[in-house]
């Protein structure tokens, strides 16, 4: 296990709500963006001189453009309902990691400069002046929020701290105090087309390699096409799917499903990234610029449908925002939703009985499923509310014999974040990532001990990467996290593929 300069929380049977310890996470903030990371996004390279006025002006601008921000800043009654709902508070005990504590960092300034009570009676209503220290506090704690929306489920007014975090990050970016991790990645997408900076030829190479692997394994020529004009389906998937474990096994699975469905499909080197970190930094403009690549690719390749691969926040941007940002998609086939999730696609085929599975291929595992926060609380799959919980589980159960859920308070709409979402998946924030994983790790550990779970499946690139990193901190192993379509890939029997049974029968016949 990696050496740490912080204490890894111990796992107990329950996650107790801790007594608060002020300021214990104040030291942690991510690396600050350099001018090279800021400027391609149209943000100033470094902290501007008149940051005080610019901050207030931006706050004023945002609250006039986002009803969410304006209402959420006003409406909180400090009821405390959200205080014990954030995994980062549970894992760190820092009260500024309580959702309302986090919101108040911005709300105090809003009250001081934009409300009657705060202007004239600041002490009475807890309003505070904007100082240089305020900015550092914001920078620190708004980068300890994974924008998972768990708090918004429990708030009587649905106050979503994610919205406040996004606004705060947008303000910080606009005064030249951005986060390196997110902004560097967005700049890479603009330049190369994906978060990892993989150029087209490298992608083509990788995909060819996958085709060979699948052929060796199954004897079937499954294609992993790139930039094929006139294909029916454009698949947009997170770039981690192109090589990292266990992501790539998921990509192999999508290809096998498309192959069996008999549809023509392609990926695009122009839109070789489903992720859209523009959301994390709350920047409508940058989120739109990233999204437009999907539209451009769809038009250029002349596809009829768009399908997204396994990625949580990407599915949020795709499902909830794509039509707004890059629509209308009237040039696509109106018989299918735009976009579709790969799990919806696979589940449709399963329901129609078009896929053959050998479930025993997954018998060496007992699985559970981690609901990714963005999928759970910000999107849907299928026609019915809650389809985002049922459809991935239906897919898993169709390809695995052993499946159990984790504790019901930790899944579905109440799911706990993996700890690495919202632009925190960077080594400089390892401490908060590990500590924030505590509630999920607790639930998983319990499922391991009580129900014999061996593996946890997920449909999010960030979740998968995060768990790969943090599982070892909690005494589990990195390969316990798997892709849902990896399970599909294991079990699917391709038409014409020889199974082990066939082979042994043949041998008998010969002998």
């Amino acid at each position, binding site marked *: 296990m990696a050496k740490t300069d912080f204490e890894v929380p111990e796992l107990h049977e329950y996650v107790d*709500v801790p*007594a*608060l310890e002020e300021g214990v996470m104040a030291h942690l903030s991510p690396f600050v963006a350099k001018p090279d990371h800021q400027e391609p996004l149209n943000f100033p390279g470094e902290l501007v001189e008149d940051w005080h006025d610019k901050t207030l002006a931006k706050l004023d601008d945002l*609250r*006039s*453009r*986002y*009803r*969410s921000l*304006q*209402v959420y800043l*006003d*409406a*909180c*009654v*400090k*009821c*405390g*309902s959200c*205080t*014990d*709902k954030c995994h980062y508070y549970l894992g760190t005990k820092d*009260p500024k990691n*309580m959702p309302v*504590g986090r919101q*108040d960092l911005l709300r105090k300034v809003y009250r001081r400069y934009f*409300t*009657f*009570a705060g202007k004239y009676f600041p002490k*009475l*209503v*807890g309003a505070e002046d904007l100082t240089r220290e305020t900015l550092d506090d914001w920078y620190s704690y708004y980068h300890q929020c994974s924008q998972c929306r768990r708090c*918004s*489920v*429990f*708030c*009587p*007014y*649905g*106050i*979503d701290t994610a*919205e406040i975090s996004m606004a705060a990050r947008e303000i910080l970016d606009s005064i030249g105090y951005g986060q390196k991790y997110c902004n560097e990645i967005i700049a890479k997408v603009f330049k190369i087309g994906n978060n990892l900076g993989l150029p087209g030829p490298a992608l083509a190479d990788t995909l060819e390699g996958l085709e060979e692997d699948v052929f060796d394994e199954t004897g079937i020529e499954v294609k992993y096409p790139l930039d094929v004009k006139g294909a029916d389906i454009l698949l947009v998937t997170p770039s981690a799917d192109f090589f990292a474990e266990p992501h790539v096994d998921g990509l192999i699975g999508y290809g096998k499903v498309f192959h069996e469905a008999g549809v023509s499909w392609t990926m695009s080197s122009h839109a070789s990234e489903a992720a859209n970190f523009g959301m994390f930094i709350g920047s*409508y*403009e940058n989120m*739109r610029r990233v999204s437009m690549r999907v539209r451009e690719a769809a038009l250029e390749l002349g596809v009829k449908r768009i399908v997204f691969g396994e990625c949580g926040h990407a599915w949020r941007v795709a*499902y*909830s*925002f794509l*039509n*707004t940002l890059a629509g209308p998609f009237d040039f696509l086939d109106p018989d299918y*939703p*735009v976009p579709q999730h790969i799990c919806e696609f696979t589940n449709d085929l399963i329901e129609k009985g078009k896929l053959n599975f050998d479930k025993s291929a997954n018998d060496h595992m007992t699985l559970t499923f981690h609901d990714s926060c963005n999928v759970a609380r*910000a999107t*849907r799959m299928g*026609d019915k*509310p*809650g389809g*985002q919980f049922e459809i991935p589980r239906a897919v898993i159960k169709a390809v695995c014999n052993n499946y159990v859920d984790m504790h019901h308070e930790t899944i579905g*709409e*109440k799911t706990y974040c993996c700890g690495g979402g919202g632009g925190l998946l960077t080594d400089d924030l390892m401490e908060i990532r590990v500590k924030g994983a505590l509630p999920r790790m607790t639930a998983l550990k319990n499922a391991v001990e009580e129900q014999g779970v061996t593996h946890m499946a997920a449909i999010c690139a960030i979740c998968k990467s995060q768990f790969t990193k943090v599982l070892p901190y909690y005494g589990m192993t990195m390969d316990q996290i798997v892709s849902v379509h990896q399970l599909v890939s294991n079990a699917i029997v391709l038409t014409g593929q020889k199974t082990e049974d066939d082979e042994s029968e043949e041998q008998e016949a010969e002998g």
Partner: protein
Amino acid sequence: MSTVYALLFIVATLVLVIGLARKIIQYAKTPAPLKIPTTPAPTTQAGVVMRLFREVVFFESLFKSTKWTWIFGWMFHMGLFLVLLRHVRYFIDPVWLPIQLIQPFGIYAGFAMVLGLAGLLVRRIFVDRVRYISAPSDYLWLLLLIVIGFSGLMMKFVAHTDVVMVKQFFHGLWTFSWGSLPMDFPLLVHLTLVVILMVLFPFSKLLHVPGVFFSPSRNQVDNPREKRHLAPWAKALEEQK
């Protein structure tokens, strides 16, 4: 003295109505550029109405969260609601039948309200997380409401006031022909604090009342794939490029 109160109430009413109207107009005018309902969310407008109904009447989300806050909060609000309905009799004549019918329950409602408020106050003082997020105003709101409730109960059960006079006074306010108020201490306390409440309402966290109806995470229909949602400023941005 009665004239002072009459003027105070007229001013307070104006502040309350105009202040709230301004906030509501602000909320209504501010666009919500993206679809952000907390899912699973209703897929129809009727579903959204039901969701808001459950939120406003039962405090559904709070119920999911912490039972103690829910019990006290719900007791307080339902008590408040009945008490306010009961108070309608001071302002109209004849009194509508439904208002007449709830009069007997209204009495207990006053106790429920004060008890709920006391519970919320205890929670605010003793739960470290809630204490941490509380500003002085958060305690003062609870105290204000407790004293309003307590003075009301005093009048009801201990030091009766002349309710007929009170009614004449407030009913007369409609036509600017108020009579005089009984000069009873509990009543004057009650009324003074009510004026304060009305004046502060639009500048305070009581904005949760309009806020709950305007919260995009609760009032949006979950249909982004079916229907394109575009804010005016986002449209302008699109046309620029």
